[in-house]
């Protein structure tokens, strides 16, 4: 072979990151490569470790929800729901039906936003720019809905800026143990319905050409194959597991919020490669959209927060509550010692498990495909680093 890059037989070490344009966050990979092939990969994480589990122990449960907002910038609602659900489980709180439906709507909207963020950046990493702009534009529509949901709550004179000031585009800040901080603002449901009705067509508009694109398929089909057995063994969950053909979705297995009362399909892949993971996530956006539409149709009346208020409740006992986040199972193990603060709060981060699986995906692949392999696992480093 004349190309020096592909010469084999001599292993060298290659550093990747910690800052790299293809990583949303800070991650270092210590690679061993033979020519252009990856022999081994060792992820080095912890660059954005904040000690957030220690911080959880210092504040009452309700205040800790603001920490959960910051675990995953792509989908705050998933961590909010997992934490609120764990507290509700410990205190035996029954969430009012209207709140359950609204929380489902918010969670699914953020699933769409998270998948759009993933789709745009993943496509851009592989050199496809048009989906990047389309997906981010679309995501903006979802974030605007999240923002408007909080507008009323802050009762600002300057309507257009209220949500932005609260930082509510990314952090939802409305979910509480026991329900939601407030009901929908006037006109929100109509605005949401407008989005839901037009979103599938627009999604087809920019994802459709990608699905059949020869270059896209060349880069993703057969890349980073994960068998269902290996995926489960490594703790891989969410779309990455379902793409391997394993139909495991906590929204179906242990229905929480309103998932038991709505109709939706769980897409599964066949080959467990990068292309299947792409297909599964795109289909999940359509299903999420379906769920939002059904919840809007059936939205019950009534209060959105359980009485009495649980903001200062003393919590005793322990529980684990896991939900299906956009990236995989996100769960909280909560231990209470009878005070208002958690004694111990550990969260199961899907990104942590997915990064652990990265070496398995990388072995034998080309260095040039590394960004595709990181992208396809859909990791948030601030969640993995705690």
């Amino acid at each position: 072979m004349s190309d020096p890059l592909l010469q084999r037989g001599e292993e060298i070490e290659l550093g990747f990151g910690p800052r790299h344009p293809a990583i949303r966050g800070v991650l270092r990979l210590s690679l061993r490569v033979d020519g252009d092939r990856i022999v081994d990969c060792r992820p080095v994480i912890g660059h954005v470790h904040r000690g957030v589990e220690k911080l959880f122990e210092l504040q009452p449960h309700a205040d800790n929800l603001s920490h959960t907002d910051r675990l995953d910038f792509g989908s705050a609602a998933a961590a909010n729901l997992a934490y609120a659900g764990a507290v509700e489980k410990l205190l035996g709180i029954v969430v009012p039906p209207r709140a359950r439906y609204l929380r489902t709507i918010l969670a699914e909207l953020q699933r769409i936003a998270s998948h759009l963020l993933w789709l745009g950046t993943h496509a851009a990493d592989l050199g496809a720019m048009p989906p990047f702009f389309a997906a981010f534009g679309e995501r903006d529509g979802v974030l605007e809905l999240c923002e408007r949901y909080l507008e009323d709550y802050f009762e600002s004179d300057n309507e257009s800026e209220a949500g932005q000031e609260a930082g509510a585009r990314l952090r939802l800040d409305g979910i509480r143990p026991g329900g939601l901080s407030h009901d929908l603002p006037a006109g929100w449901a109509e605005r949401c319905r407008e989005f839901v009705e037009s979103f599938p067509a627009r999604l087809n508009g920019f994802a459709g050409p990608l699905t059949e694109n020869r270059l896209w398929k060349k880069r993703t089909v057969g890349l980073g194959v994960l068998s269902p057995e290996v995926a489960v063994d490594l703790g891989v969950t969410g779309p990455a597991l379902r793409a391997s053909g394993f139909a495991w979705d906590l929204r179906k297995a242990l229905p929480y919020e309103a998932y038991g009362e709505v109709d939706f399909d769980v897409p599964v892949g066949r080959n467990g490669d990068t292309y299947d993971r792409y297909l599964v996530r795109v289909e999940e956006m359509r299903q999420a959209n379906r769920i939002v539409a059904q919840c809007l149709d059936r939205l019950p009346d009534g209060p959105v927060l359980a009485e009495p208020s649980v903001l200062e409740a003393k919590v005793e006992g322990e529980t684990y509550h896991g939900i299906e986040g956009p990236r995989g199972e996100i769960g909280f193990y909560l231990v209470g010692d009878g005070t208002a603060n958690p004694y111990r709060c550990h969260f199961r981060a899907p990104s942590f498990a997915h990064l652990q699986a990265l070496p398995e995906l990388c072995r034998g692949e080309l260095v040039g495909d590394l960004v595709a392999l990181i992208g396809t696992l859909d990791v948030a480093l601030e969640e993995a680093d705690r």
Partner: protein
Amino acid sequence: MEGAAEDPLAMALREELGEAIESARILGGDLTLQIRRETIAEVCAALKSKHGFTYLVDLCGVDFPGREPRFEVVYHLCSPAANRRVRLKVAAGEGEAAAAVPSVTGVWRAANWPEREVWDLYGVRFDGHPDLTRILLWEGFNGHPLRKDFPVEGIDTGAAAATVKVGGSGGGEA
């Protein structure tokens, strides 16, 4: 406690594993088994091979400074086939003198990083782990920050010196 005695899984496990199970309770909706430390790897292997617990959901530590032994390692297992979950606990001591907890990395590869995390943040050692190094903090960090007696405001960790030396990496040696 109520429910645990009649739980079919708890009964089957008691039959198979006998003294390895110190107690069985229902906590927070999940069957919780206190396991003798030396036997945890065997118990996990049995749960995986005979009862379908192929998925290790989570593994973490808890610090109880008043207790002897001081730490608790908590395992959350899930059987996707049976759609059920189980929580296992073992007690673990402090320092070099205390016996290490047998690693379950041989049962589920998913246990690798979480066990490193428990070592990093609590200082609990795992016996048979292929690579028990710090994961969130860097090698050479002094102390285990999730212990209850570790000050929240932090200690002088020599982080400034480490940053200069390792060229921007904070995550330990590769």
